[in-house]
């Protein structure tokens, strides 16, 4: 009885001080969780990448296209099961802040390669049939209220002019990790329009998507594809979808690193605050620790009181912080809309939060514990009065 009773009642002794400390930990653990979730959201595309899909792009950079003619040559490479292609459109819907990815695709071959996009049969047919039709993800549709039959105008940046599309279908993801923030339309429609305006830019694709017969041969097939086009006008770079996604994220890696650093800095700050609280607490109670030691309680008992109190406060704050992370993440996701295709608190993040809270409790108690355990009985008793 006495150990836990002492720990808990000691923790509640200075109600205001404990409450403020708990609030600090709640805020820190919550911020940490949200920042970690943002980092995870950044890499969500890579997480969902299929191992049997390759992406072939221009070796110079993503912004340089490839001739459509490459499609057939790639299809002829041994180990390739199917090839499709897509162009990044980069249009603006109403205002630049409304960001979501738009791709011009060849509907049948492309969607056949992405079984994780679930489209109702009828809507799929309607989309394929309508040259100016669009297929939008569920999350995108929810964010902007797109419904089947709606007309969506996009202002082109790479491809000038205002483009109008009619929503013909809405796709769902096979699970919560599937990106449903995308906007697809017909490559043919894009190409014909481009052809009319500037013949030189026609019949070009942004990337080729390659489906493998055997995911284990990804490296060999990639090499074979790139070898085909070595020292040709447009050399290619082929990598797995995952590597491609990570490469894409790498462009903004500095931000991700900064966010990650900030998330840990938050923990370090709360650790310093907590350590100060525990030092103050232990100092005030030295005469009690001395009394306990005089009565014959061993130093570990006294150290345990300090550690227990510190852990109790830290874990309580951590638990509340974790509980608040979920609604906070939902609110955040709703606010930023389709900026992050997938925004979910991962189990690993909760684990990290719990570990961070425990670490804060543990480290903050380290020095005060030592001091309490080593208090000289006579001096500690003298401190009274």
């Amino acid at each position, binding site marked *: *009885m*006495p150990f836990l*009773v*002492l720990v808990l*009642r*000691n923790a509640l*002794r200075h109600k205001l001080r404990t409450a403020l400390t708990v609030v600090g930990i709640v805020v820190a653990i919550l911020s940490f969780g949200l920042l970690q979730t943002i980092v995870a959201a950044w890499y969500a595309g890579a997480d969902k990448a299929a191992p049997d899909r390759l992406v072939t792009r221009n070796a110079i950079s993503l912004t340089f296209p490839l001739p459509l003619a490459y499609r057939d040559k790639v299809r002829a490479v041994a180990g390739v099961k199917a090839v499709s292609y897509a162009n990044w459109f980069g249009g603006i819907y109403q205002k630049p802040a409304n960001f979501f990815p738009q791709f011009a695709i060849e509907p049948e071959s492309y969607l056949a390669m992405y079984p994780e996009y679930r489209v109702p049969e009828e809507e799929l047919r309607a989309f394929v049939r309508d040259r100016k039709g669009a297929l939008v993800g569920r999350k995108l549709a929810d964010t902007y209220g797109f419904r089947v039959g709606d007309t969506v105008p996009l202002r082109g940046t790479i491809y000038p002019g205002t483009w109008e599309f009619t929503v013909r279908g809405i796709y769902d993801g096979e699970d919560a990790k599937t990106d449903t923030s995308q906007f697809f339309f017909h490559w043919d429609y894009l190409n014909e329009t481009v052809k009319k305006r500037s013949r030189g830019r026609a019949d070009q694709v942004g990337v080729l998507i390659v489906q493998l017969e055997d995911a284990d041969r990804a490296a060999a097939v990639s090499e074979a594809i790139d070898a085909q086009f070595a020292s040709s006008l447009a050399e290619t770079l082929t990598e797995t979808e995952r590597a491609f996604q990570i490469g894409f994220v790498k462009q903004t890696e500095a931000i991700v690193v900064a966010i990650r650093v900030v998330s840990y800095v938050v923990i370090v700050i709360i650790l310093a605050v907590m350590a100060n609280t525990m030092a103050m607490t232990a100092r005030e109670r030295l*005469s*009690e620790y001395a*009394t*306990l*030691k*005089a*009565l*014959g*309680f*061993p130093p570990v008992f006294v150290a345990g009181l300090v550690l227990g109190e510190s852990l109790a406060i830290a874990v309580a704050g951590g638990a509340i912080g974790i509980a608040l992370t979920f609604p906070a993440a939902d609110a955040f996701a709703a606010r930023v809309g389709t900026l992050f295709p997938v925004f979910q608190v991962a189990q690993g993040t909760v684990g990290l939060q719990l570990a961070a809270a425990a670490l804060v409790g543990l480290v903050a108690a380290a020095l005060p514990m030592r001091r309490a355990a080593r208090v000289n*009985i*006579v001096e500690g*008793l003298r401190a*009274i*009065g």
Partner: protein
Amino acid sequence: MSGVAAPPLVRVAGVSKSYRRGGQVVPVLADITLDIPGGAFLGLMGPSGSGKSTLLNLIAGIDKPDAGSIAVAGVDITRLPEAELADWRAANVGFIFQFYNLMPVLSALENVELPLTLARMDRRERRERAQATLELVGLGDRMEHFPSELSGGQQQRVAIARAIVTDPRILVADEPTGDLDRHSAEEILALMDRLNVDLGKTIVMVTHDRRAAERAHSIMHLEKGELFAHEELPR
């Protein structure tokens, strides 16, 4: 008493103690030799700074001398390592402090139970013994009160209950009435007298107060770290 052949309960032999303060050595106790028979009620008097508390702390095993030995019931406690000394204190010494030193977050009953948690004893037995001891000191109706809800005299009685609940060989009290008014002080002294006479507890009590010291059976006077006079009081 002088005719009894049994060895004294506490035997302090040639004990010295000094403190270093800023490179200067301040002698506090110089070559103290003293026997305390079992069942004694000894008062330790002397001016402030004469070393009374220091001597009491040495006997209680919460401080160590620079030289000399202190044997309690045949055990030289100056040679015990820290952990064994702590166990020894838990089993043999009851502490009564000037400022009571109760745990403020524990009720009277829980405070008295506290030292019993160091003994191998089940919950129920612990509780029953603590209750009986609180009743013995006249606080049967205050068990659930917290120290802040008790008067000074009541707190000191809780502290006395905590000191005797483990049935120690020796009680040490450093100015147990120093913070109390006359009336409460009298009650505490009467209680200590009962512990000595009725329960046969050996008590060593430091006090400034002549009237408090007169409740003891003998008084030792300390001056500048030396034992100076020993008076036997008529019972």
